[in-house]
């Protein structure tokens, strides 16, 4: 659908009747619908194999779409003008590759001047400013692989900002990081929120998602629930997504505490 002349800004993201999956495997997601406005920060939750990573990769244009469509600011997500910041899971990155923190951030600028063998001065300067924004300027010349998990994630977030992405997709940034790193990533996400960045984050950490995000999408192949955390994390929805492994959700002092959500084993897409 194209926006008509009377419509204001098209939504930042429209996912309509989406069906997608890896070309070599059965389709993972089907009939998926949701919309995000500019500046929305949404947590994407669901069990392993629910299709969270698949959805993020489909929006980023990394895998083909079988049915339906994904529009970013009203434009098809595969269009060359659409810029999507995608921060993959930790195991998707080669940590031994010879790059510094500054190199990684400046890569976000590569689109505009891809044929120059060197990085223009203004791109290098902008990358340095982004590192400063995330309090990483002191690590600019350090090897990327030698930094802590929290620093690495923040560098990848800074790279997405360098890309001037229309929407930022984060695939389980808290996976495999310790408490200190998690705190660093949380403050980086807070910074993104303050800057009005549209953000969709897949996570297994429902307690964190409920605490830090105003809106949650619960999915299992398709959308199970969409709304504020206290509306989404209801026993019936959780049962629908997680089956019998859904646990108890006590509400204490008006704050939602998610406890003992065991995840089903045997599904391994995410």
């Amino acid at each position, binding site marked *: 659908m194209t926006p008509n002349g009377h419509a204001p800004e098209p939504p930042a993201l429209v996912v309509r009747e989406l069906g997608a999956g890896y070309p070599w495997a059965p389709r993972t997601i089907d009939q998926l619908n949701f919309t995000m406005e500019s500046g929305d920060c949404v947590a994407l939750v669901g069990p392993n194999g629910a299709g969270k990573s698949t959805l993020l990769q489909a929006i980023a244009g990394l895998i083909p779409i079988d049915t339906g469509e994904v529009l970013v600011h009203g434009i098809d997500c595969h269009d060359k003008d659409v810029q999507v910041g*995608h921060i993959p899971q930790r195991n998707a990155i080669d940590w031994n590759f010879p790059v510094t923190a500054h190199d990684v951030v400046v890569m976000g600028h590569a689109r505009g001047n891809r044929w120059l063998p060197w990085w223009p001065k203004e791109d290098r300067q902008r990358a340095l400013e982004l590192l400063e924004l995330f309090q990483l300027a002191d690590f600019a010349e350090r090897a990327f692989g030698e930094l802590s998990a929290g620093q690495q994630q923040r560098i990848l977030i800074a790279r997405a900002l360098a890309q001037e992405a229309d929407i930022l997709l984060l695939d389980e940034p808290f996976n495999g990081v310790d408490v200190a790193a998690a705190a660093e990533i949380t403050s980086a996400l807070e910074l993104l929120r303050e800057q009005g960045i549209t953000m969709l984050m897949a996570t297994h950490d429902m307690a964190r998602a409920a605490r830090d995000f105003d809106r949650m999408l619960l999915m299992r192949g398709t959308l199970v629930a969409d709304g504020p955390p206290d509306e989404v994390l209801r026993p019936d929805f959780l049962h629908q997504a997680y089956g019998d492994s859904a646990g108890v959700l006590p509400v204490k002092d008006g704050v939602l505490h998610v406890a003992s959500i065991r995840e089903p084993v045997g599904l391994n897409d995410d």
Partner: protein
Amino acid sequence: MIEILDSLLEPLSYGFAQRSLLALMLVGSLSAVVGSFMVARGLAFFGDALSHAVLPGVAVAYTAGGNLFVGGLGAGILTALIIVFMTRDRKVKEDTAIGIAFVTMFALGIAIISTRPSYSGDLTHILFGSISGIDDADLTFMVVLGSLVLLLILVFYKQLLIVCFDPELGHVLRFPVSFLRALLLVLVAVTIVLSLQAVGVALMLALLLTPAATARLLTKRMSHMILLAGLLGCAGGVIGFYLSWWTNVPPGSAIVLELSAVFGLVYAYRTLRQRRRRTGLGVPSMPGR
């Protein structure tokens, strides 16, 4: 002093020695530059496979009297395509596919060469190179094509860097990722075939990997690694040439031994430095002493 200078200049009074030296410098630096991407990307095994897989193409060209370069390049590209085809639906793992494809191609090459009466001599030339046979036309061809490879790397540097480091970023930046991957493999295949006459199939891998691996130990940035590897490879060509001249060892073998010795020294230096740093951190100074 003059004696040393004499012994350095003496080989250069022969035309074939000048050509050999230039060819080794070119092949050494070119292989190291291209090999830097392979080392950074963890494609060492692929380099080994490709360097052996060119054999049937070279063998067919050799037997039929055709162009060795075209034959070798054709076989290299065919092997790369077979590997891509075998791994497309992930039923066969990449390293398994590489292993099967390259040994098959190598066996095919040996089978083709074995049909010739001068089997063993021909095979030795292809396996270990015959640098003294390089003429002016060969050298010109190597310089032109080698320059083209370097030019392509320069033009595509950023895109190759990103696709090697994080292919997904390449996709979201709308780079032609599949084309760039194929381009890198073709550049490796061209480099291998260009280096064939100088060092042969068997030792080719060392030229691709060793200078790049040495440079990797000394730097944390891809651009620096490429420059340093290129210099190490070029120096390896020069030193290997003189070692070969003075000791009568084949140049390919002399270069590889020299490159490996440098790698060993740098590795030892890095290990010692790391150990010293660790000890420094691990044993705090005693107060009051």
